[in-house]
Protein backbone atom coordinates (compact mmCIF):
# COMPACT_ATOMS: atom_id res chain seq x y z
CA UNK A 1 0.00 0.00 0.00
CA UNK A 2 1.20 3.47 -0.81
CA UNK A 3 0.69 5.64 2.24
CA UNK A 4 -1.65 8.55 1.60
CA UNK A 5 0.19 11.83 1.56
CA UNK A 6 -0.65 15.17 3.07
CA UNK A 7 1.43 18.31 2.87
CA UNK A 8 1.33 18.71 6.63
CA UNK A 9 0.02 16.70 9.52
CA UNK A 10 -2.19 18.10 12.24
CA UNK A 11 -1.75 16.42 15.59
CA UNK A 12 -3.30 16.59 19.02
CA UNK A 13 -1.63 16.14 22.40
CA UNK A 14 -3.80 15.24 25.39
CA UNK A 15 -2.05 15.63 28.74
CA UNK A 16 -3.49 12.81 30.84
CA UNK A 17 -2.02 14.34 33.98
CA UNK A 18 -4.27 17.34 33.52
CA UNK A 19 -7.43 15.72 32.20
CA UNK A 20 -9.99 15.68 35.00
CA UNK A 21 -12.63 13.71 33.10
CA UNK A 22 -15.06 16.63 33.13
CA UNK A 23 -16.41 15.74 29.67
CA UNK A 24 -16.38 19.35 28.53
CA UNK A 25 -14.58 18.34 25.33
CA UNK A 26 -16.98 15.50 24.60
CA UNK A 27 -20.08 17.56 25.29
CA UNK A 28 -18.75 20.52 23.31
CA UNK A 29 -18.14 18.18 20.38
CA UNK A 30 -21.56 16.59 20.84
CA UNK A 31 -23.31 19.93 20.86
CA UNK A 32 -21.42 21.14 17.82
CA UNK A 33 -21.44 18.10 15.54
CA UNK A 34 -23.72 15.21 16.46
CA UNK A 35 -27.24 16.48 17.00
CA UNK A 36 -28.73 15.40 13.68
CA UNK A 37 -30.81 12.34 12.83
CA UNK A 38 -29.15 9.08 13.76
CA UNK A 39 -26.36 10.73 15.74
CA UNK A 40 -27.82 10.38 19.20
CA UNK A 41 -25.42 7.69 20.36
CA UNK A 42 -22.40 9.16 18.61
CA UNK A 43 -19.57 10.70 20.65
CA UNK A 44 -16.84 11.66 18.21
CA UNK A 45 -14.88 12.78 21.27
CA UNK A 46 -15.30 10.40 24.20
CA UNK A 47 -13.66 10.39 27.60
CA UNK A 48 -13.39 7.12 29.46
CA UNK A 49 -11.81 5.92 32.65
CA UNK A 50 -8.75 3.75 32.20
CA UNK A 51 -8.33 0.91 32.88
CA UNK A 52 -11.81 0.17 31.65
CA UNK A 53 -13.80 -1.41 28.87
CA UNK A 54 -14.37 1.95 27.24
CA UNK A 55 -16.30 3.07 24.20
CA UNK A 56 -17.39 0.91 22.44
CA UNK A 57 -17.40 -1.75 25.13
CA UNK A 58 -14.12 -3.70 25.11
CA UNK A 59 -12.87 -1.88 22.00
CA UNK A 60 -9.26 -2.82 22.64
CA UNK A 61 -10.02 -6.46 21.83
CA UNK A 62 -11.88 -5.78 18.56
CA UNK A 63 -8.93 -6.03 16.18
CA UNK A 64 -8.17 -3.99 13.10
CA UNK A 65 -4.97 -2.09 12.44
CA UNK A 66 -1.98 -3.47 10.54
CA UNK A 67 0.16 -6.57 10.69
CA UNK A 68 3.47 -5.44 12.25
CA UNK A 69 5.50 -7.53 9.80
CA UNK A 70 3.72 -7.03 6.50
CA UNK A 71 1.76 -3.84 7.06
CA UNK A 72 -1.34 -5.56 5.72
CA UNK A 73 -4.62 -4.47 7.29
CA UNK A 74 -5.95 -6.93 9.85
CA UNK A 75 -9.57 -8.04 10.05
CA UNK A 76 -11.49 -6.57 12.92
CA UNK A 77 -14.91 -6.61 14.52
CA UNK A 78 -17.52 -4.03 13.62
CA UNK A 79 -18.73 -2.51 16.90
CA UNK A 80 -22.46 -2.91 17.19
CA UNK A 81 -25.12 -0.48 18.30
CA UNK A 82 -25.28 -2.33 21.63
CA UNK A 83 -21.52 -2.23 22.12
CA UNK A 84 -21.49 1.55 21.68
CA UNK A 85 -24.64 1.79 23.78
CA UNK A 86 -26.09 5.10 24.85
CA UNK A 87 -28.49 7.21 22.85
CA UNK A 88 -31.03 6.55 25.57
CA UNK A 89 -34.53 7.90 25.83
CA UNK A 90 -35.37 9.09 29.33
CA UNK A 91 -38.63 9.25 31.27
CA UNK A 92 -38.69 13.05 31.35
CA UNK A 93 -42.48 13.25 31.12
CA UNK A 94 -42.97 10.94 34.05
CA UNK A 95 -40.40 12.63 36.29
CA UNK A 96 -41.13 16.27 35.50
CA UNK A 97 -44.83 16.27 34.68
CA UNK A 98 -46.20 12.93 35.87
CA UNK A 99 -47.16 14.03 39.34
CA UNK A 100 -45.22 11.18 40.91
CA UNK A 101 -43.09 13.45 43.07
CA UNK A 102 -39.98 11.80 44.41
CA UNK A 103 -41.11 8.29 43.52
CA UNK A 104 -40.08 8.32 39.88
CA UNK A 105 -36.41 8.76 39.07
CA UNK A 106 -34.80 9.79 35.86
CA UNK A 107 -33.45 6.71 34.12
CA UNK A 108 -32.84 5.35 30.64
CA UNK A 109 -35.79 3.55 29.14
CA UNK A 110 -35.64 0.07 27.68
CA UNK A 111 -34.13 -3.17 28.95
CA UNK A 112 -31.68 -2.91 31.82
CA UNK A 113 -29.66 -5.94 30.80
CA UNK A 114 -26.36 -5.31 29.03
CA UNK A 115 -26.87 -1.57 29.27
CA UNK A 116 -23.79 0.37 28.19
CA UNK A 117 -22.82 3.84 27.09
CA UNK A 118 -19.90 6.19 26.68
CA UNK A 119 -18.18 6.58 30.09
CA UNK A 120 -20.40 3.82 31.55
CA UNK A 121 -17.56 2.45 33.70
CA UNK A 122 -16.53 5.87 34.98
CA UNK A 123 -14.05 5.86 37.88
CA UNK A 124 -14.10 2.09 38.33
CA UNK A 125 -10.44 1.77 37.40
CA UNK A 126 -8.40 -1.02 38.89
CA UNK A 127 -6.30 -1.98 41.90
CA UNK A 128 -7.20 -2.41 45.57
CA UNK A 129 -7.54 0.26 48.24
CA UNK A 130 -5.41 2.07 49.20
CA UNK A 131 -3.61 1.58 45.91
CA UNK A 132 -6.53 1.74 43.51
CA UNK A 133 -5.87 3.82 40.42
CA UNK A 134 -7.43 5.23 37.33
CA UNK A 135 -7.01 8.06 34.88
CA UNK A 136 -9.09 9.62 32.16
CA UNK A 137 -8.47 9.24 28.45
CA UNK A 138 -10.14 11.45 25.86
CA UNK A 139 -10.30 9.80 22.46
CA UNK A 140 -11.09 11.18 19.03
CA UNK A 141 -10.34 9.90 15.53
CA UNK A 142 -6.56 9.53 15.38
CA UNK A 143 -6.39 10.96 11.85
CA UNK A 144 -3.76 8.32 11.17
CA UNK A 145 -0.96 8.77 8.65
CA UNK A 146 -1.59 5.22 7.37
CA UNK A 147 -5.29 4.79 8.07
CA UNK A 148 -6.73 1.31 7.63
CA UNK A 149 -10.26 2.75 7.47
CA UNK A 150 -9.33 4.48 4.25
CA UNK A 151 -7.73 1.38 2.78
CA UNK A 152 -10.71 -0.84 3.68
CA UNK A 153 -13.34 1.40 2.08
CA UNK A 154 -14.46 0.01 -1.30
CA UNK A 155 -16.03 3.25 -2.49
CA UNK A 156 -13.16 5.62 -1.75
CA UNK A 157 -15.29 7.66 0.62
CA UNK A 158 -12.35 8.51 2.90
CA UNK A 159 -9.40 10.71 2.11
CA UNK A 160 -6.54 12.54 3.79
CA UNK A 161 -6.77 16.29 3.56
CA UNK A 162 -3.79 18.51 2.90
CA UNK A 163 -3.73 19.18 6.64
CA UNK A 164 -3.62 15.45 7.40
CA UNK A 165 -7.19 14.99 8.57
CA UNK A 166 -9.06 11.81 7.60
CA UNK A 167 -12.39 12.96 6.23
CA UNK A 168 -15.35 11.12 4.80
CA UNK A 169 -17.53 12.10 1.87
CA UNK A 170 -20.93 11.01 3.13
CA UNK A 171 -22.33 11.25 -0.40
CA UNK A 172 -19.90 8.52 -1.43
CA UNK A 173 -20.11 6.37 1.73
CA UNK A 174 -22.37 3.36 1.19
CA UNK A 175 -22.46 2.39 4.86
CA UNK A 176 -20.57 -0.86 4.28
CA UNK A 177 -18.72 -0.44 7.59
CA UNK A 178 -15.46 -2.09 6.57
CA UNK A 179 -13.87 1.10 7.93
CA UNK A 180 -15.32 0.40 11.36
CA UNK A 181 -13.85 -3.09 11.32
CA UNK A 182 -10.43 -1.98 10.13
CA UNK A 183 -10.03 0.96 12.55
CA UNK A 184 -7.99 -0.31 15.51
CA UNK A 185 -9.31 2.50 17.71
CA UNK A 186 -12.99 1.84 16.99
CA UNK A 187 -13.75 5.55 16.73
CA UNK A 188 -16.11 5.29 13.77
CA UNK A 189 -19.87 5.21 14.32
CA UNK A 190 -22.69 4.07 12.08
CA UNK A 191 -25.67 6.29 11.47
CA UNK A 192 -28.52 3.79 11.26
CA UNK A 193 -30.96 6.39 10.02
CA UNK A 194 -28.84 7.77 7.20
CA UNK A 195 -26.93 4.57 6.34
CA UNK A 196 -23.49 6.18 6.50
CA UNK A 197 -20.55 5.85 8.86
CA UNK A 198 -19.37 8.96 10.66
CA UNK A 199 -16.44 10.05 12.78
CA UNK A 200 -14.54 13.05 14.16
CA UNK A 201 -13.90 15.54 11.37
CA UNK A 202 -11.11 17.33 13.20
CA UNK A 203 -13.39 20.38 13.28
CA UNK A 204 -12.14 21.11 9.76
CA UNK A 205 -14.53 24.02 9.18
CA UNK A 206 -13.06 25.67 12.28
CA UNK A 207 -9.52 24.81 11.20
CA UNK A 208 -10.16 26.44 7.84
CA UNK A 209 -11.31 29.58 9.65
CA UNK A 210 -8.28 29.60 11.94
CA UNK A 211 -10.26 28.40 14.97
CA UNK A 212 -8.97 25.53 17.12
CA UNK A 213 -11.07 22.35 17.31
CA UNK A 214 -13.71 22.53 19.97
CA UNK A 215 -12.17 19.74 22.08
CA UNK A 216 -9.02 21.85 22.34
CA UNK A 217 -10.50 25.29 22.80
CA UNK A 218 -13.16 24.32 25.34
CA UNK A 219 -10.93 22.26 27.65
CA UNK A 220 -11.06 24.01 31.03
CA UNK A 221 -7.97 22.15 32.22
CA UNK A 222 -5.71 23.40 29.41
CA UNK A 223 -4.94 19.75 28.77
CA UNK A 224 -5.19 19.63 24.97
CA UNK A 225 -2.80 20.97 22.35
CA UNK A 226 -3.17 21.11 18.60
CA UNK A 227 -0.66 22.01 15.97
CA UNK A 228 1.27 20.84 12.96
CA UNK A 229 3.79 18.13 13.72
CA UNK A 230 6.45 19.85 11.62
CA UNK A 231 6.06 23.23 13.31
CA UNK A 232 9.38 23.14 15.16
CA UNK A 233 8.42 26.10 17.35
CA UNK A 234 5.05 24.69 18.37
CA UNK A 235 4.36 22.78 21.57
CA UNK A 236 3.00 19.74 19.73
CA UNK A 237 6.25 19.25 17.83
CA UNK A 238 8.32 19.80 20.96
CA UNK A 239 6.29 17.45 23.15
CA UNK A 240 6.17 14.69 20.52
CA UNK A 241 9.36 14.96 18.51
CA UNK A 242 11.83 16.82 20.70
CA UNK A 243 11.09 15.91 24.29
CA UNK A 244 9.40 12.56 23.57
CA UNK A 245 6.93 12.98 26.43
CA UNK A 246 3.79 12.62 24.28
CA UNK A 247 3.17 9.17 22.85
CA UNK A 248 0.66 7.57 20.46
CA UNK A 249 -1.94 5.18 21.83
CA UNK A 250 -1.44 1.55 20.84
CA UNK A 251 1.37 2.28 18.37
CA UNK A 252 1.55 -1.45 17.69
CA UNK A 253 -1.68 -1.09 15.69
CA UNK A 254 0.57 0.26 12.95
CA UNK A 255 -1.61 3.04 11.55
CA UNK A 256 0.65 5.89 12.72
CA UNK A 257 -1.93 7.78 14.76
CA UNK A 258 -1.68 11.54 15.17
CA UNK A 259 -3.25 11.89 18.59
CA UNK A 260 -0.61 11.78 21.31
CA UNK A 261 -0.86 11.43 25.06
CA UNK A 262 1.33 12.62 27.90
CA UNK A 263 1.19 9.43 29.99
CA UNK A 264 -0.18 9.55 33.51
CA UNK A 265 1.97 9.78 36.56
CA UNK A 266 0.24 8.43 39.63
CA UNK A 267 0.39 8.98 43.37
CA UNK A 268 2.96 6.89 45.16
CA UNK A 269 2.02 3.40 46.18
CA UNK A 270 1.33 2.82 49.88
CA UNK A 271 2.80 -0.12 51.75
CA UNK A 272 0.72 -2.20 54.17
CA UNK A 273 1.91 0.04 57.02
CA UNK A 274 0.76 3.07 55.00
CA UNK A 275 4.29 4.28 54.47
CA UNK A 276 5.09 5.62 50.99
CA UNK A 277 6.72 3.25 48.54
CA UNK A 278 8.75 5.47 46.24
CA UNK A 279 9.98 2.63 44.07
CA UNK A 280 6.78 0.95 42.87
CA UNK A 281 4.44 2.91 40.63
CA UNK A 282 0.78 2.70 41.52
CA UNK A 283 -0.21 2.31 37.88
CA UNK A 284 1.52 -0.92 36.81
CA UNK A 285 4.20 -0.14 34.26
CA UNK A 286 3.10 -3.17 32.24
CA UNK A 287 -0.32 -1.60 31.83
CA UNK A 288 1.06 1.71 30.64
CA UNK A 289 3.41 -0.13 28.29
CA UNK A 290 0.44 -2.01 26.85
CA UNK A 291 -1.14 1.34 25.99
CA UNK A 292 1.79 3.46 24.88
CA UNK A 293 4.61 1.03 24.09
CA UNK A 294 7.99 0.73 25.85
CA UNK A 295 8.74 4.43 25.25
CA UNK A 296 6.36 5.23 28.09
CA UNK A 297 9.06 4.52 30.66
CA UNK A 298 11.43 7.12 29.25
CA UNK A 299 8.57 9.60 28.92
CA UNK A 300 7.60 9.17 32.57
CA UNK A 301 11.24 9.33 33.65
CA UNK A 302 11.62 12.63 31.78
CA UNK A 303 8.53 14.07 33.45
CA UNK A 304 9.72 12.99 36.90
CA UNK A 305 13.16 14.38 36.28
CA UNK A 306 11.76 17.72 35.13
CA UNK A 307 9.54 17.89 38.20
CA UNK A 308 12.55 17.23 40.39
CA UNK A 309 14.44 19.98 38.62
CA UNK A 310 11.70 22.47 39.39
CA UNK A 311 11.38 21.27 42.99
CA UNK A 312 15.08 21.93 43.34
CA UNK A 313 14.62 25.50 42.22
CA UNK A 314 15.43 24.99 38.56
CA UNK A 315 13.42 25.72 35.46
CA UNK A 316 11.80 23.31 33.00
CA UNK A 317 10.65 24.23 29.52
CA UNK A 318 8.73 20.96 29.37
CA UNK A 319 6.72 21.69 32.50
CA UNK A 320 6.15 25.31 31.49
CA UNK A 321 4.75 24.05 28.21
CA UNK A 322 2.54 21.45 29.87
CA UNK A 323 1.29 23.91 32.48
CA UNK A 324 0.32 26.20 29.59
CA UNK A 325 0.58 29.54 31.32
CA UNK A 326 -0.37 31.17 28.05
CA UNK A 327 -3.63 29.59 26.89
CA UNK A 328 -3.18 30.55 23.25
CA UNK A 329 -0.13 28.36 23.04
CA UNK A 330 -2.36 25.31 23.17
CA UNK A 331 -4.16 26.39 20.07
CA UNK A 332 -1.22 26.31 17.67
CA UNK A 333 -1.89 28.58 14.70
CA UNK A 334 -5.66 28.35 15.27
CA UNK A 335 -6.13 31.27 17.63
CA UNK A 336 -9.08 33.02 15.98
CA UNK A 337 -11.93 33.61 18.44
CA UNK A 338 -15.00 31.90 16.95
CA UNK A 339 -17.18 34.67 18.39
CA UNK A 340 -15.54 37.09 15.96
CA UNK A 341 -16.58 35.13 12.89
CA UNK A 342 -19.57 36.23 10.88
CA UNK A 343 -21.75 33.20 10.36
CA UNK A 344 -22.80 32.31 6.86
CA UNK A 345 -26.50 33.09 6.44
CA UNK A 346 -28.60 29.96 6.37
CA UNK A 347 -31.90 29.27 4.64
CA UNK A 348 -33.95 29.78 7.76
CA UNK A 349 -32.23 32.99 8.84
CA UNK A 350 -33.94 36.22 7.97
CA UNK A 351 -31.71 38.69 6.18
Amino acid at each position, binding site marked *: *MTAPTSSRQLAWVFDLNKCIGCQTCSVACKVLWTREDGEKQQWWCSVNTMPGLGTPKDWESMGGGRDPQTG*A*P*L*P*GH*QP*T*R*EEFGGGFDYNYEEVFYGGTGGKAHLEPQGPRENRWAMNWDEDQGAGEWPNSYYFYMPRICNHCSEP*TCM*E*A*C*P*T*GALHKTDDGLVLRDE*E*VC*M*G*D*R*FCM*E*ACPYKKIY*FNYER*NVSQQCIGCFPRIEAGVAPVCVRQCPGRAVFIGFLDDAEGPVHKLVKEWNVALPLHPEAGTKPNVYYVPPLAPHRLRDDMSIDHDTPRIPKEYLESLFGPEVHDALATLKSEMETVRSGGSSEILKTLIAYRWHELLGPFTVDPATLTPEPTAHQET
Partner: protein
Amino acid sequence: MKVERVDAGQGLADPWGQAWSALPATTVALNPVDYEAQPNRYIRAAWKDRPYGQTVEARVAAASDGDRLYIRVEWPDDPRPNAEFQDAASAIFPMNGTGALATMGDPEKPLALWFWEDGRPSPLRLVSRGPGVFRKDDGSELSARGACNNGAWGVVFAGPEAVAGKGKVGVAIWNGSNEERGGLAAVSQDWLQLETAEE
Protein backbone atom coordinates in the same frame (compact mmCIF):
# COMPACT_ATOMS: atom_id res chain seq x y z
CA MET B 1 -36.91 -12.99 -20.68
CA LYS B 2 -40.08 -11.44 -21.96
CA VAL B 3 -41.10 -8.06 -20.64
CA GLU B 4 -44.84 -8.45 -20.27
CA ARG B 5 -46.91 -5.48 -21.37
CA VAL B 6 -49.44 -4.41 -18.77
CA ASP B 7 -51.78 -1.52 -18.19
CA ALA B 8 -50.60 1.28 -15.97
CA GLY B 9 -51.72 1.04 -12.39
CA GLN B 10 -52.22 -2.69 -12.50
CA GLY B 11 -50.85 -3.13 -9.00
CA LEU B 12 -47.33 -4.09 -10.02
CA ALA B 13 -45.75 -2.16 -7.17
CA ASP B 14 -46.85 -4.84 -4.70
CA PRO B 15 -44.32 -7.69 -4.89
CA TRP B 16 -46.89 -10.17 -3.62
CA GLY B 17 -49.88 -8.75 -5.49
CA GLN B 18 -52.15 -10.58 -7.89
CA ALA B 19 -50.67 -8.82 -10.89
CA TRP B 20 -47.40 -10.73 -10.63
CA SER B 21 -48.92 -14.17 -10.09
CA ALA B 22 -50.28 -14.06 -13.63
CA LEU B 23 -46.91 -13.21 -15.18
CA PRO B 24 -44.18 -15.73 -16.06
CA ALA B 25 -40.98 -15.74 -14.04
CA THR B 26 -37.52 -17.04 -14.89
CA THR B 27 -35.26 -18.89 -12.47
CA VAL B 28 -31.84 -17.27 -12.45
CA ALA B 29 -28.72 -19.04 -11.14
CA LEU B 30 -26.56 -16.95 -8.83
CA ASN B 31 -22.87 -17.14 -7.92
CA PRO B 32 -20.81 -15.35 -5.29
CA VAL B 33 -19.26 -12.17 -6.71
CA ASP B 34 -15.67 -12.93 -7.68
CA TYR B 35 -13.45 -13.09 -4.57
CA GLU B 36 -10.20 -12.15 -6.31
CA ALA B 37 -11.84 -9.05 -7.75
CA GLN B 38 -12.85 -7.74 -4.32
CA PRO B 39 -11.57 -4.19 -4.30
CA ASN B 40 -8.99 -4.19 -1.52
CA ARG B 41 -6.83 -6.46 0.58
CA TYR B 42 -8.74 -5.65 3.75
CA ILE B 43 -11.96 -7.14 2.38
CA ARG B 44 -10.11 -10.10 0.85
CA ALA B 45 -8.39 -10.82 4.19
CA ALA B 46 -11.56 -10.46 6.24
CA TRP B 47 -13.57 -12.77 3.94
CA LYS B 48 -10.84 -15.20 2.91
CA ASP B 49 -12.32 -18.15 4.76
CA ARG B 50 -15.85 -16.91 5.06
CA PRO B 51 -18.54 -17.91 2.56
CA TYR B 52 -20.71 -15.22 1.02
CA GLY B 53 -23.12 -15.03 -1.88
CA GLN B 54 -24.66 -18.39 -0.98
CA THR B 55 -28.11 -17.52 -2.31
CA VAL B 56 -28.15 -19.99 -5.20
CA GLU B 57 -31.04 -18.76 -7.27
CA ALA B 58 -33.72 -16.11 -7.65
CA ARG B 59 -36.96 -15.86 -9.60
CA VAL B 60 -37.09 -12.85 -11.90
CA ALA B 61 -40.02 -11.42 -13.81
CA ALA B 62 -40.39 -8.24 -15.85
CA ALA B 63 -43.25 -6.09 -17.04
CA SER B 64 -43.76 -2.71 -18.63
CA ASP B 65 -46.66 -0.31 -18.84
CA GLY B 66 -45.05 1.52 -21.72
CA ASP B 67 -43.64 4.13 -19.42
CA ARG B 68 -41.95 2.29 -16.61
CA LEU B 69 -40.10 -1.00 -16.45
CA TYR B 70 -40.93 -3.26 -13.53
CA ILE B 71 -38.51 -5.97 -12.37
CA ARG B 72 -39.61 -8.40 -9.70
CA VAL B 73 -37.02 -10.48 -7.83
CA GLU B 74 -37.86 -13.26 -5.39
CA TRP B 75 -35.44 -15.29 -3.30
CA PRO B 76 -35.50 -17.35 -0.08
CA ASP B 77 -34.88 -15.39 3.12
CA ASP B 78 -32.15 -16.44 5.54
CA PRO B 79 -34.07 -16.35 8.83
CA ARG B 80 -31.02 -15.87 11.07
CA PRO B 81 -31.39 -12.51 12.85
CA ASN B 82 -28.80 -9.78 12.39
CA ALA B 83 -29.36 -6.41 14.02
CA GLU B 84 -26.63 -4.63 12.05
CA PHE B 85 -27.02 -5.60 8.39
CA GLN B 86 -30.09 -5.78 6.22
CA ASP B 87 -31.10 -7.91 3.24
CA ALA B 88 -30.76 -6.13 -0.07
CA ALA B 89 -31.21 -6.72 -3.78
CA SER B 90 -30.40 -5.09 -7.10
CA ALA B 91 -31.60 -5.17 -10.65
CA ILE B 92 -28.48 -4.68 -12.76
CA PHE B 93 -28.19 -3.15 -16.23
CA PRO B 94 -25.13 -2.72 -18.45
CA MET B 95 -24.33 0.91 -19.15
CA ASN B 96 -22.36 0.35 -22.35
CA GLY B 97 -24.14 -2.60 -23.92
CA THR B 98 -22.50 -5.22 -21.77
CA GLY B 99 -20.31 -5.76 -18.74
CA ALA B 100 -19.10 -8.43 -16.31
CA LEU B 101 -21.72 -9.50 -13.80
CA ALA B 102 -19.22 -11.69 -11.91
CA THR B 103 -17.23 -8.62 -10.91
CA MET B 104 -20.14 -6.16 -10.80
CA GLY B 105 -18.63 -4.34 -13.76
CA ASP B 106 -15.20 -2.79 -14.11
CA PRO B 107 -13.84 0.71 -14.70
CA GLU B 108 -14.26 0.45 -18.47
CA LYS B 109 -17.66 -1.24 -18.51
CA PRO B 110 -19.62 -0.01 -15.52
CA LEU B 111 -23.02 -1.37 -14.58
CA ALA B 112 -26.07 0.46 -13.31
CA LEU B 113 -27.69 -0.97 -10.19
CA TRP B 114 -31.18 -0.29 -8.97
CA PHE B 115 -30.53 -0.95 -5.29
CA TRP B 116 -33.14 -1.79 -2.69
CA GLU B 117 -32.29 -2.44 0.96
CA ASP B 118 -34.67 -3.47 3.71
CA GLY B 119 -35.33 -0.42 5.88
CA ARG B 120 -33.76 2.11 3.51
CA PRO B 121 -36.43 4.72 2.82
CA SER B 122 -35.88 4.92 -0.93
CA PRO B 123 -33.92 2.95 -3.52
CA LEU B 124 -30.59 4.08 -4.89
CA ARG B 125 -29.24 4.10 -8.41
CA LEU B 126 -25.62 3.03 -8.24
CA VAL B 127 -22.91 3.02 -10.87
CA SER B 128 -20.74 -0.02 -10.22
CA ARG B 129 -17.15 -0.34 -11.44
CA GLY B 130 -16.25 -3.45 -9.48
CA PRO B 131 -17.39 -5.43 -6.43
CA GLY B 132 -18.79 -2.81 -4.10
CA VAL B 133 -17.05 -0.04 -6.04
CA PHE B 134 -20.22 1.98 -6.18
CA ARG B 135 -21.05 5.62 -6.84
CA LYS B 136 -24.46 6.94 -5.94
CA ASP B 137 -26.24 8.39 -8.96
CA ASP B 138 -29.55 10.17 -9.39
CA GLY B 139 -32.17 7.63 -8.36
CA SER B 140 -35.07 10.04 -8.11
CA GLU B 141 -36.98 8.28 -10.90
CA LEU B 142 -36.71 4.91 -9.23
CA SER B 143 -39.07 3.25 -6.83
CA ALA B 144 -38.80 -0.09 -5.10
CA ARG B 145 -40.85 -2.05 -2.63
CA GLY B 146 -39.89 -5.21 -0.81
CA ALA B 147 -41.72 -7.53 1.52
CA CYS B 148 -40.98 -10.86 3.13
CA ASN B 149 -43.73 -13.45 2.76
CA ASN B 150 -43.65 -17.07 3.94
CA GLY B 151 -39.86 -17.17 4.13
CA ALA B 152 -39.19 -15.46 0.83
CA TRP B 153 -38.33 -11.90 -0.14
CA GLY B 154 -40.17 -10.29 -3.01
CA VAL B 155 -38.89 -6.96 -4.32
CA VAL B 156 -40.28 -4.94 -7.18
CA PHE B 157 -38.11 -2.30 -8.82
CA ALA B 158 -39.65 0.29 -11.12
CA GLY B 159 -37.79 2.76 -13.26
CA PRO B 160 -37.75 4.52 -16.61
CA GLU B 161 -38.67 2.35 -19.58
CA ALA B 162 -35.66 3.71 -21.47
CA VAL B 163 -33.36 1.08 -20.00
CA ALA B 164 -35.47 -1.81 -21.33
CA GLY B 165 -35.96 -2.35 -25.07
CA LYS B 166 -33.30 -4.75 -26.29
CA GLY B 167 -31.44 -4.43 -23.01
CA LYS B 168 -30.21 -6.95 -20.51
CA VAL B 169 -30.81 -7.41 -16.83
CA GLY B 170 -29.05 -9.24 -14.01
CA VAL B 171 -29.74 -9.42 -10.30
CA ALA B 172 -27.73 -9.39 -7.09
CA ILE B 173 -28.75 -10.49 -3.60
CA TRP B 174 -27.12 -9.44 -0.32
CA ASN B 175 -27.85 -11.66 2.69
CA GLY B 176 -27.90 -9.37 5.73
CA SER B 177 -27.88 -12.36 8.09
CA ASN B 178 -24.41 -13.12 6.73
CA GLU B 179 -23.31 -9.46 6.96
CA GLU B 180 -23.11 -9.16 3.19
CA ARG B 181 -22.62 -5.69 1.73
CA GLY B 182 -20.59 -3.98 -0.95
CA GLY B 183 -19.17 -6.60 -3.29
CA LEU B 184 -20.06 -9.46 -0.97
CA ALA B 185 -23.18 -10.70 -2.72
CA ALA B 186 -24.69 -13.36 -4.94
CA VAL B 187 -24.99 -12.22 -8.54
CA SER B 188 -26.53 -13.65 -11.73
CA GLN B 189 -24.26 -15.96 -13.69
CA ASP B 190 -25.53 -14.61 -17.01
CA TRP B 191 -27.42 -11.65 -18.38
CA LEU B 192 -31.10 -12.10 -19.10
CA GLN B 193 -32.11 -10.57 -22.42
CA LEU B 194 -35.13 -8.33 -21.99
CA GLU B 195 -37.52 -8.94 -24.86
CA THR B 196 -40.21 -6.33 -25.10
CA ALA B 197 -43.54 -7.85 -26.08
CA GLU B 198 -45.01 -6.51 -29.33
CA GLU B 199 -48.04 -4.30 -28.84
